[in-house]
């Protein structure tokens, strides 16, 4: 098992390097010289040359990439073109907010998703099941900004229960977390239902029932445990879409997070900042996938014993 975890870690590292290279290439082929954008059209040619040398942009591509990667490994992502501070300090400020937002959204999504999924699976093909599954498709189909703005309108503006934007304390995260978790709740509910329905048809469920365990006990201790494996894999996939949705949520609720930094970086044509935010978000997704893979092999005895 250790060997397979090691192998996966290596694979993840290869993917991460590929990701870094891809971002690096994409941001270097942008039309228009970044330096001119940065210093203005009428900058002194000598100053432009000096700046280019200072930023190392006159060196060959692979040298630039090597310098960037070795810097990034030490936590140095360069200096922001538009804000003139180090990218790592900007990210360090924004990162906890995005993590808080994504985690609380995940909690919302899991609570709603798993509970609805279990109920739908137990009452398979009942009216309740259809209602929940219909609603979950609604959840999946609503754009994040729509949920966010509807919540903002009713709960922050009309009822005044929450701040309209910004986060001063934990309450600031409530609405963004619901808005962000809404989509994922739908897909988690659907997945929980389908795997649980499948597991409930297994022989060992009948065995457990015939031994006289109560239905609820069988569902919670035997069936749910075994149907959670695909849901764990789903968690990693969801992390990626949560980070995508966070961009929108952070913009609407004015949360200083990674996603908003990325949007600001695009409007400010700030390559180092954009590069840093995207690289970090993607690294987070890769790490999440790796953890899910390892969890999977720890939790599933068939995988654990190298079956």
């Amino acid at each position, binding site marked *: 098992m250790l060997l397979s975890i090691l192998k996966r870690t290596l*694979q993840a590292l*290869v*993917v*991460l390097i*590929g*990701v870094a290279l*891809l*971002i690096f290439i*994409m*941001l270097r*082929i*942008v*039309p228009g010289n970044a330096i001119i954008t940065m210093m203005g059209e009428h900058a002194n040619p000598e100053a432009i040359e000096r700046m280019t040398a200072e930023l190392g942009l006159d060196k060959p591509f692979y040298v630039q990439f090597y310098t960037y990667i070795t810097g990034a490994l030490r936590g140095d992502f360069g200096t922001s073109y538009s804000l003139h501070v180090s990218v790592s300090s900007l990210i360090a400020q924004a990162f906890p907010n995005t993590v808080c937002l994504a985690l609380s959204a995940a909690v919302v999504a899991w609570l709603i998703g798993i509970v609805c999924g279990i109920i739908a699976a137990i009452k398979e093909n009942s009216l309740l099941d259809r209602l929940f599954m*219909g609603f979950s*498709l*609604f959840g*999946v*189909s*609503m*754009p*994040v*900004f*729509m949920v966010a*703005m*509807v919540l*903002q*309108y009713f709960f922050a*503006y009309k009822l005044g229960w929450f701040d309209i934007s910004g986060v001063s304390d934990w309450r600031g995260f409530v609405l963004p977390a619901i808005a962000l978790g809404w989509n994922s709740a739908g897909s988690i509910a659907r997945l929980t239902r389908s795997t649980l329905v*499948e597991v409930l048809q297994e022989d060992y469920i009948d065995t457990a029932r015939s031994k006289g365990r109560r239905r609820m006990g069988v569902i919670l201790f035997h069936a749910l445990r075994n149907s959670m494996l695909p849901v764990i894999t789903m968690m990693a996939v969801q992390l*990626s*879409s949560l*980070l*995508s*949705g966070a*961009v*929108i949520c952070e*913009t*609407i609720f004015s949360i200083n997070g990674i*996603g908003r930094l*990325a*949007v600001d970086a*695009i*409007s400010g044509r700030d390559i180092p900042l*954009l590069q840093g*935010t*995207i690289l970090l*978000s*993607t690294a987070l*997704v*890769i790490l999440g*996938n790796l953890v899910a893979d390892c969890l999977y092999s720890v939790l599933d005895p068939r995988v654990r014993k190298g079956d």
Partner: protein
Amino acid sequence: MRDDQEEILTMQMDSPEDVLAEADTLKDQLKRMARQNKLAVISAVVILLFVLGAIFAPVLTPYEFDQLDVINRLAPPSAEHLLGTDELGRDVLTRLLYGSRISLLVGVVPTVISMLAGAVLGICAGYIGGKTDTVIMRLADIMLAFPSMLLAMVIMYTLGDGLINIFLALALVSWASVARIVRSETLKLRESIFVEAAKSMGVSRLKIMCRHIFPNCLPSLIVLFTLNIPSAILSESSLSFLGIGIKYPQASWGLMVNLGRQFLYTKPWLSLAPSIAIMLVVLAFNFLGDGLRDVLDPHLKDQ
């Protein structure tokens, strides 16, 4: 479409095993879905209505999508302007109708591109195997590692704004998952008896991939197609909402939501109307995709 169906039919003749199991053609399967799944039918009708609305937009509304009427700006819904007017006095319903052109195009065009690219790469990876497989799948791994929104943002940054670039960005974001699914289908098909038979008859590799593997991937591709359209529509609206996609004065639903956001508390319908339009279209495609999967996807059909 007819050709495809005939190809599927001939394919089934190639494999005696499957003749009994999958005797019903695509058409029969669709008919079955129509009988069993009313929601899917309603969804198809809703989609058709949106398509008609998009095509006949100039006939359906007396206004132009960029026709300004500053005196009547921010008017509430009325008989003249069913959904009111926006901050420059443009008719919201008109902009919705014209916006559906962009949303539907953005749903279909990048999805077609990514389907084709994903199918070709997936079949090559699965059938040829070896180094080809490794290279294609590692590339897919890299693309799939990105949060899709952020990848689309970087691509839009590189390419610049505009409709064509959105097509490209969304296609680039979504080909990898298609390739992965098609590859695993191909791996299964490669071992099947009719491919074995074709191989023993000396049919070339290219021909096996085109004539035998591809048609058998079609049902999955159709399901993926219907389910990837809504995510493309959502991605475009999110990009336009952030101001990275379609630019003024074009009417895109995401852009309309974005422009309406500054009046959220006083004129909520400005953002709400396009949001609901997005939701309806996406919902319809999701329901239809679900219905199609139930009848077309062999894995679910077995149960």
